[in-house]
Structures are given as C-alpha cells and as structure tokens.
C-alpha cells in the first residue's frame, strides 16, 4: 500500500483505482483487506470446524491428564480408568509424590540442572553473540564454525565417547556442557545485537567505555526482552531433556524428572511408596498423571511469555534474518 502511494506520487497523480478499493473496506477496522471477497457460510463453517477439531485435539490430552491426576479411587474405578471429570477431586496424588522419595528428588535435580544450565548457557551465548555482532578479527570464521554444527552433528556414539573422554560420565555436567550453546539461539541474539545502532556503541567508546562496559551497560539493558525469550528457550530445553540423562547417568539416584517420568509412567514401573494398600491411598493412575502434571507445570507457567513473543512476531523476524 505504501509503495502504491509512493509510485503514485512519482508519476504526479494519485493512484485512484487502488485508493478507492482500499477505502471501500476501511470502515470495518477488522483488518480485512478491501479486495478480499467475503466467505460463504459453507466456507466459514468448514474453517471453524477444522479449527475446533485442531484445538480439541491439542487440548484434550492435557485436560484428561489433569482430570485423572485429581481423581480419587471411586472416580477411577467407576468408568474403567477413564476420568472425564473427577467427581471427588483430591490432591492426595500430589501429596504422595511430594512426600519425599524418588519424584521429589528428581524434581530437585531437574530444577538444579535447569537453573544452572540456563545461567551458564546465557552467559556463554550472550558473550559470544555480542563478540560476533561486531566486525572483529576471525569473526566470520567463528560464526561459520558455529553455524556448521546446525547441519553436521556428531552421532550418538562419537558424542558418548567424547563425554567419556572428558571424564563427564555420571556427572551432572554431562547434562549441561554438551548442549551449552545452541547455534540458533546464538544467531537470534547476534542478529538482535547487530541491530543496535553502532553510533551508540561508538559514542560510549569515545567516552572511554571498553567492550565489557558496553556489553553490561548498553547492550544487555537494551536487549532484555530477547534475552528473556532465549533464556526461556534454554530453560525449556534443559527441563525437557531426557536423552542425555539416559545416556550419561548410570546412577538412577541422580535421575532428573523426565527420566523418572519415563520409568514410572511410560514404562509403567511401580512407584516406590505408591500403590500401598493403606486406606484412601490415591489410585496408581492418579499418581502417574500427577507426575506428568508436575513435569508440565514449569512449561505451562513460562508458556504465556514465550507465546507472546511469537504471536507478536518478534522472534520470527530474527529467525528470518
């Protein structure tokens, strides 16, 4: 639209036909372009139906898990395990898993890995992205080196041998160091830093600031939003990671939550302490689903923040470069 106007001015006359088409539909203010034909009732209902199905397909599993985790014994027995709506909701499943023991321990491990991992990743990624956002000696080479790892990754066995060689087997460092820097996150940050006007940084330099001051006092404060999103990405990744724990940790006492979840929910191993014949003990299904809910809660908590940036298109701009 802007271009049409510009070209109109260029030729010294207003682009009359276009303008009238645009003005014709401008009244609604609902973002509908004027040239777009209205949908028929059939089209509209088919589209609505598709979206309803998609949304239900995404949300139903979450609701089902939540309902089961809150169910008590009679709710579960009543309908052969299927709980649509717990009529006697109880938190006893959650009480059981937080009583200590395997799940509590795994939650602590997962939180620790996520917090420490995210902090380390952010420190290394931010520093590297800033370094590569300005023209420095060797910058092109280092950037290429990081980008190539997106396409070509070592396989499972070479990775395992490397971790073993570095003496990281059976340590929590093996869950953090191998995934410390994500090349995509690096690109997103670098792209953002590159858009900070260099006049700003040059002015600071003339005032006697060095690169360290500039990073801490100008670049980071200006990039809080994008840094928060990248940090959330790292956090979600650390929280969700189960494969490295499976590969590198032999001692099941060290397991993070995702691995515990795999053992007791996906593989259905009996949870120690659960399934006691004590009265009012929560049903096994509820305990399993409570573990699933607990593993999802941090994700669901940060999700609104993550999602806000996507719908606003902040990150997609950066991704497209």
């Amino acid at each position, binding site marked *: 639209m802007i271009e049409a106007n510009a070209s109109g001015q260029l030729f010294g006359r207003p682009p009359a036909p276009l303008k009238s088409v645009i003005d014709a539909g401008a009244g609604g203010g609902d973002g509908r372009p004027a040239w777009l034909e209205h949908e028929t009732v059939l089209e509209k209902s088919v589209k609505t139906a598709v979206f309803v199905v998609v949304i239900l397909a995404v949300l139903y599993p*979450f609701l089902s898990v939540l309902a089961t985790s809150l169910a008590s014994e009679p709710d579960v027995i009543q309908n052969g395990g299927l709980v649509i709506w717990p009529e006697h909701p109880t938190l006893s499943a959650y009480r059981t898993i937080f009583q200590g023991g395997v799940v509590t321990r795994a939650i602590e491990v997962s939180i620790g890995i996520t917090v420490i991992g995210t902090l380390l990743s952010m420190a290394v990624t931010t520093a590297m992205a800033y370094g590569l956002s300005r*023209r420095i000696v060797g910058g092109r080479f280092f950037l290429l080196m990081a980008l190539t790892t997106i396409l070509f990754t*070592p396989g499972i066995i070479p990775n395992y041998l490397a971790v073993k060689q570095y003496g990281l087997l059976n340590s929590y460092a093996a869950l953090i160091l191998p995934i410390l820097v994500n090349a995509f996150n690096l690109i997103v940050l670098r792209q953002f830093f590159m858009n900070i006007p260099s006049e700003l940084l040059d002015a600071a330099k003339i005032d006697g600031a060095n690169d360290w001051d500039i990073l801490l006092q100008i670049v980071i404060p200006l990039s809080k939003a994008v840094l928060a999103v990248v940090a959330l990405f790292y956090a979600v990744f650390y929280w969700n990671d189960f494969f490295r724990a499976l590969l590198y940790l032999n001692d099941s006492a060290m397991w993070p939550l995702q691995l515990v979840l795999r053992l007791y929910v996906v593989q259905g191993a009996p949870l120690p302490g659960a399934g006691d014949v004590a009265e009012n003990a929560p049903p096994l299904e509820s305990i399993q689903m409570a573990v699933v809910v607990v593993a999802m809660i941090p994700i669901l908590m940060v999700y609104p923040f993550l*999602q806000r940036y996507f719908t606003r298109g902040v990150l997609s701009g950066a991704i497209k470069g």
Partner: protein
Amino acid sequence: MSAVDVNRAAGTLGGVRVGTATPARLSLWTRIWRDRLMLLFVLPGVVYFILFGYLPLLGNIIAFEDYLPFVGFDSPFVGFDNFRSMISDTAFWQALSNTIVITLMQLIFYFPAPIMLALLMQSVISTKIRRIIQSVVYLPHFISWVIVVSLWQQVLGGSGIFVHTLRDLGLPAINVMTEPGLFKALATSQLIWKETGYATIIFLAALLNIEAALYEAAVMDGAGRWQRLWNITLPGILGVVILLLILRLGLTLTVGFEQILLQRNAVGPAAGEVLDTYVYFKGIVGGQWGVTAAAGLIKGIFGTAIVIAANKLAHRFGQEGVYS
C-alpha cells in the same frame, strides 16, 4: 534469507569499529590486540563448539577399529570389518527400512501440514481469534517427548477415551500404543500433533512478507481465491518451503530418536527399531561399539550428501536453498 545462509550473514557483520579506518593495513597481531576483549567474549563459545561440535567427530575413527572400552582409541585397526558385519546384520536392514518408511510418511503427511495450517490461519481475519488459535497450537512444541508419549498413552491407551469409545460402539478395542502394525502411523501422528503448530511460525512470517499490492493487482485483474493461492501465495513462500525441505531431507535417516526410543519396547524392535535406536541399543547398551559407530558414520555421511545434493538441485531451479 535465513539464519542458515552463512555467506550472506557473515557479509553483513556489524558496523565499523571505532579506530578501524584502515583495517587492511593493520597486522594480524595488532588486530587481535585491538579486539582482545571481544575475542575473550567469543572464546568460551568457540571452546564449546570445538569440544562438543568438532572433536567428537574424531571419535568416528572407532568405526574402523575393534573398539575395546578399556583400551580406548588405540584399539586394533580392522579396516572395513565393522561395515561388513553391519551389512550382514539383519537387524540393521530392519532398522534402515523402518527409518525410510517413517521418513517417507513424515515427508508426505507431516511436511505439508504446517503449510496448510498456516494458510488456514492466515485466512482468519480477526487478530484476536488468530492469537487464540496460535497460543493453542504452539503449545505441544514445548512439551517434552516423554510427556507427549504419556499424554498419548492416556488418551489412546487401555484406559483412555479412544478404547472406551470403541468398546461403547461394540468394536474390538485396539490399543494403538502397543500395536506393531500401527506404530509408524502412530509415530507420524505424534509428530504432526507436536510440531505442526509451531512449524507454522516460519510460514506465517513468509506469508506476511508477500506484498499486499500483488493481491490487489490480481483481484483487479479478476483473479479468484484459488488463482491467487496458486500464482501469488505459493510462489511467495516457495523459497522457505524449499529451505525447510532441504533441511528435512538432511534428517532423512534421523526420525524422532527420543520419541521412538520411548516407544520401541512397547511394539518390539521389528516394528519400532530405527537407525538411531539401533545404534543406541546395540552400541551403548549392547557394547558393539565399532559396528554401531559404522552405522552412525554412514548415516551422517548420507545426511550430509543429501543436503548438498538437494541444495545443488535447488540452485539449478533458481532457488536460494540453504547456502549459496
């Protein structure tokens, strides 16, 4: 065009640094000294990429060795013996054929799904409704595979609503989660459920980049809905589609490792083994290091070759591809 476009990204490196009016005349050491702080910032990341991106590649050497864990990399050299025993292993061929079938199913059913969903979402005019749809469909991407499998078990497993409905209708109750014949369809559906929504982001961005003036002009020329889709929208996003297709092809032999590892035991290796799980179970669990390193190496070389070939092909058709 994208973050992966290495040459172009490097060509637009940030602004000129203060005091570098004649960079060509400075010696290397002067420039290193000038950029010392910036290089220090870059250093930890570079060390990371060397330690965990490049040095592990050397570990592939054991594909040519009779690897003994207590001897390490100095294990006896055996030439191509590992490749020979890999070729004569029926489990390898089973895993390879499963992998290829799942990859093809993903290409046919999963790859177009986000494009179609993005087109559909684009056609929703109300921003509010579009945001609601977006927040719902992006969600599964952020959930780990362990949880996704748990969720699916809950819905499709023995006590889920699916089996209940079948029973209520008087049909035989099938547990989709443990049915070997349905495993490949299950794995593909799970991928569609988890990633379709999130994958729309890049297509939505590409759709936004198409100039509105093109549509206006087309409407004035009398082009209908489908003509515009075919002649403006699809060509407009073709570059992104091809870019993603090439990246996807590079993953031809990498089909959802975590996802399949989690469910392989429920359906058995005949239906559920793929190359990556073959390497994991036979190598890391079973201790056959050399053979599985050979399988992994073949897989890596194949993935690289297919990316290069697909990129060449894209160039031939006048597309940008992943790199130039």
